[in-house]
């Protein structure tokens, strides 16, 4: 087929594109990811019997705000990375804000604590399982956000994969926060971020393999 003929063929398919808008796909993927994580959490960990009491604690909401802020920043970054030639701009800097705020809070807590208590504040009682639980709950969002990226055209595949992994890690953490008993900021500053780093790293590895177009 000559290029001239190909152009003619493509021109017959001019017009509005049937595929869903990119933002819509990411919104859909996030909702599916949250719903999937909720189901997975109920099935694997069960629902906390003292969930209502925990809701009275400020840090319960702090965890949710942290995870939601990271997810929002991740989404802002992804919708730009999904389009060829669109500069990432401030979206990347925005991503650094939630961890920096959390680290500042953790540093404040640790500096006021007795030296002997510091290790306990960091390790809590669930540090062994927390990152893996977050990674597990991020699986539905991971699959959904890769699906969303498949419908777009990222040009830096490892970065886009990492972005999708981070978004799913943040959504996994958002749901896991409903179950997690830890309320100390030093714990969150280490283990929540470690939990999100797992899908982020996996996304960076899988991006170049799965996202080619």
């Amino acid at each position, binding site marked *: *087929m*000559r*290029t*001239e*003929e*190909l*152009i*003619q*063929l*493509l*021109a*017959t*398919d*001019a*017009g*509005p*594109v*049937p*595929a869903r*808008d*990119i933002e819509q796909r990411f919104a859909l993927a996030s909702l599916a990811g949250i719903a999937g994580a909720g189901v997975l959490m109920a099935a694997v960990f069960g629902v906390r019997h003292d969930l209502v009491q925990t809701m009275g604690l400020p840090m319960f909401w702090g965890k949710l705000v942290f995870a939601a802020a990271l997810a929002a920043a991740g989404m802002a970054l992804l919708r730009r990375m*999904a*389009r*060829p*030639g*669109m500069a990432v701009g401030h979206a990347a800097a925005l991503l650094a804000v939630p961890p920096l705020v959390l680290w500042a809070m953790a540093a404040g807590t640790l500096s006021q604590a007795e030296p002997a208590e510091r290790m306990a504040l960091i390790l809590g009682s669930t540090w062994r399982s927390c990152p893996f639980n977050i990674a597990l709950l991020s699986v539905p969002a991971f699959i959904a956000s890769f699906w969303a990226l498949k419908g*777009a*055209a990222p*040009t830096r595949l490892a970065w886009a994969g990492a972005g999708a992994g981070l978004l799913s890690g943040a959504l996994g953490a958002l749901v896991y926060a409903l179950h997690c008993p830890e309320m100390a900021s030093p714990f969150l500053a280490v283990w929540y971020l470690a939990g999100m780093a797992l899908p982020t790293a996996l996304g960076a590895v899988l991006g170049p393999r799965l996202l*080619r*177009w």
Partner: protein
Amino acid sequence: MEIEERLRGLLLLGLDADAVAYQRFLKELSAHLRAFLRRRLSQRPDEVEDLVQETLLAVHNQRHTYRPDMPVTAWAHAIARYKLIDWLRSHRVKGALNDTLDEEAGELFSTSDSEAAEARRDLGKLLETLPDRQRLPILHVKLEGLSVVETAQLTGLSESAVKIGVHRGLKALAAKIRGMA
């Protein structure tokens, strides 16, 4: 920039279902792509036209990623650059990746070349391998120049099935090209 305004106008008309404007957009873009790729693939001149076609197909299949507030030139350059890097990687062209690609969209649009060489890979043959519901709409619409309505009557498919068949078929064609790399 004159090229930007002209291409943007044509693409937006094309996205609004103006096939003539869209064809002019693709034609002008193909000349820029050809010159860009001839320069970049000076060691492999017979691969140029294949990559021009592959990139045009990618531009078409990814046109939903274009936003009217983005420069068309930057968008098209990013696609061309991606396709070139992807090609260089999968063909393991030594040293070519070290030769850093210009980030400026201006490079793609600085020259143009409308002298198409013969493509080595025949997209027509690849088309034959698609399932009927994709192949037939494409063949009728392309080869016989039939309209969507006429193709629908001829094949017994609904109009939307013809449109979806062409759309999915072009996506499948791009996937087959990737599979060959």
